[in-house]
């Protein structure tokens, strides 16, 4: 263990030790937090827990399936959780069901130091406070690219050519991977590619689908060319699988979440050869477009509507404490923080490069979730070669339309 790491742990311990007595100015309250589970969120929640005293309880339920329980848990009155840690995709059902409260008055009272950048506002009302950013971007292996005599790709056309060159040179049989598991992951890959091609998912001003067109076909064909350079098991690849393959040195190029950068660049689970040659670069553009074919995501917190005003205020104070510069400084490597005092690390380079290319944020549209589900379920047959691109897109539109009618978005 390096001295630097030791001193960081020491600093964290000291911080935690003093924080236990920190006075957050809450008299008594019950604070309960639900959210996804990864190291950055863990750090924020631990920061919020420092507000716990004899009269203030702070509890948390962090797990990967939080999206499935958040709506039911917040619909109850009083809500099961007072805080939900969410993102631009997961917040949509909460907004649609009116389960989170506007934060403007709480910000005026307790959060004036938060930057404008962190406010997620809908129709002029701040509904959530963001604390970190995430995006999918390219991970490349410098040494393999050099061995094959090719440059770092900046467009998907180049990614395909580079992967093909590596394959032709006999270095790797399956040099490329992305999170292409059937379901949400595959849907997300199409969303990236379709936006990169300049597509619009819905006809302007309506919930009518708009993907069965030339843009959709072009996006699908690019995806197919990429999966042909992937391991044949690509329809089961989620982030964990791609990260494991990368760390075992089986990949030369991967399109993967920025939040995986820290795990890949640390000294666990991989060889020095892989880690020292891993480069994090911007997500590529595609089809002559000028924005990277990726989507930007924020992670932030929102406060439940169905809790008492006192608990809501206490929850807000605790969460602001959780995303304070002290916490961020102690966990600088864990994420691309949107908080003052954050110092960019090498693990964040890919997300920064992608964001600076004017990549679009993931659309916060009420019916986008239904479109995403339909995409995740209907594209695999085309990628396996048993269906045409037009048929696959027609299936997506039909599946989406059925669901949207049932949910009252279409007539």
């Amino acid at each position, binding site marked *: 263990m390096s001295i630097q790491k030791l001193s960081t742990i020491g600093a964290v311990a000291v911080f935690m030790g003093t924080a236990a007595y920190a006075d957050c100015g809450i008299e008594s309250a019950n604070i309960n937090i639900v959210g996804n589970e990864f190291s950055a969120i863990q750090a924020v929640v631990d920061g919020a827990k420092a507000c716990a005293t004899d009269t203030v309880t702070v509890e948390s339920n962090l797990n990967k399936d939080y999206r499935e329980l958040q709506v039911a848990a917040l619909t109850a009155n009083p809500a099961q959780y007072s805080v939900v840690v969410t993102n631009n995709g997961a917040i949509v059902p909460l907004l649609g069901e009116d389960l989170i409260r506007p934060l403007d008055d709480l910000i005026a009272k307790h959060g004036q130091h938060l930057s404008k950048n962190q406010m997620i506002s809908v129709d002029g009302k701040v509904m959530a406070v963001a604390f970190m950013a995430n995006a999918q971007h390219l991970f490349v292996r410098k040494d393999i690219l050099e061995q094959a005599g090719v440059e770092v790709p900046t467009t998907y056309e180049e990614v395909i050519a580079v992967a093909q060159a590596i394959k032709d040179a006999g270095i790797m049989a399956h040099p490329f991977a992305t999170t292409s*598991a059937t379901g949400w992951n595959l849907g997300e890959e199409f969303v990236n590619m379709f936006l990169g091609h300049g597509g619009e998912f819905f006809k302007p001003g309506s919930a009518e689908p708009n993907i069965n067109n030339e843009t959709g076909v072009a996006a699908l064909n690019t995806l197919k060319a990429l999966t042909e350079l992937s391991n044949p098991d690509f329809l089961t690849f989620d982030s964990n699988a791609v990260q494991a393959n990368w760390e075992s040195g089986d990949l030369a190029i991967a399109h993967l979440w920025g939040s995986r950068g820290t795990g890949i660049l640390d000294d666990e689970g991989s060889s020095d050869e892989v880690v020292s040659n891993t480069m994090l670069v911007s997500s590529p553009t595609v089809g002559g477009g000028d924005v990277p074919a990726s989507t930007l995501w924020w992670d932030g917190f929102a406060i439940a509507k169905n809790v008492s005003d006192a608990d809501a205020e206490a929850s807000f104070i605790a969460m602001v404490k959780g995303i304070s510069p002290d916490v961020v400084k102690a966990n600088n490597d864990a994420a691309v923080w949107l908080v003052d005092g954050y110092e960019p690390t090498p693990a964040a380079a890919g997300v920064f490069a992608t964001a600076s290319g004017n990549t679009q944020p993931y659309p916060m549209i009420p019916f986008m979730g239904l479109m995403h589900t339909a995409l995740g379920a209907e594209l695999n047959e085309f990628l396996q070669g048993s269906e045409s691109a037009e048929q696959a897109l027609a299936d997506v539109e039909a599946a989406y339309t059925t669901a949207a009618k049932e949910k009252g978005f279409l007539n």
Partner: protein
Amino acid sequence: MRHKTFFWFILPSLAAMFLFIALPLVSVVVQSLHIEHEQVIVVTENCGPFGCKQESSVDTEATEQLRAEKPLGRFAGLSTYFDRGHLATAEIAEAWRTNDSFGDFFGEIFNLPFYKALTFTLAYTFIVTPLVIVLGLLIALGVNRVTPVLKGPTIFVSLLPMMITPLVGSLILFWMIDAQGVIGKTLQFIFDDPELSLKASPALTWITLMVYGVWSSAPFAFVVFYAGLQTVNTDSLEAAQIDGASRWQQIRFVVIPHLMPLVVFISLIQLMDNFKVFEPVIGFKAGANAPSLSYIIFADMRSDIIRYNSAAATSVLTVLGVAILLSPVLLRTWRDFKGKAV
């Protein structure tokens, strides 16, 4: 037993069945007949760390008012049952009109989610059930002949697949058949095809799931048959031996007729079990290639936006499917019962 005594005897179980089976079933049927209110959509300016954008959002106040007036949603009759996600009558009629060959017609039907799941579920049920019965019988006959010392350990090993939690068992196999796993790599080597993947091709996924199904259920058939074998009349067997029957003839004409009621019992249980196939589909991440009816209900309930009405309709159709599947066996039991009464 007098009728009154009988009534008091089964009352607790009747009450439980009413509370936990009949009532939820009614609520599911009611849900399947409704769809959600029309959502009131407005365009708002949404801002965040990546700038501002004009986007659609739900007008929560207006939508809330609609919901307060009619909490069940809009009555839609049977329309959910006939939409593309379920029976898809319009799509089938269209496919019938536009396709000349049966191959294309069935290709299009197989492309519809409900029929795809139904095809897999039926294929799984009707392939796995007989194989489980045959394999279970073979294991039972084999174990029955093993010397007494080895019987205990043999029975224990034969029962192992049933003891392992289905999800864990399928996950272990899932890792082994991975293109990088022990079985996956061996198969690639044997067939000399580096692109061979048990997870990628639908046909191979089906075979994998069915092999797993037989592997995990055969012990159940084995235990039942083994118990049955202990009650075979030794007099009949000896008589057959004296008449010069071979081992096969003894099994065919003495043992199997004796075990016939058990075959009916196992078929009944296995038909019901296999029609509900679910854990292996999850464990093998086979939802894309081999969705079962239970899986598509699960998928509706698990996304961000939960589709209760669609899931309810699929559930009702699945219950009907089980009823149709079991009707021949139940009819037979009913006829036997009536025959005895007369």
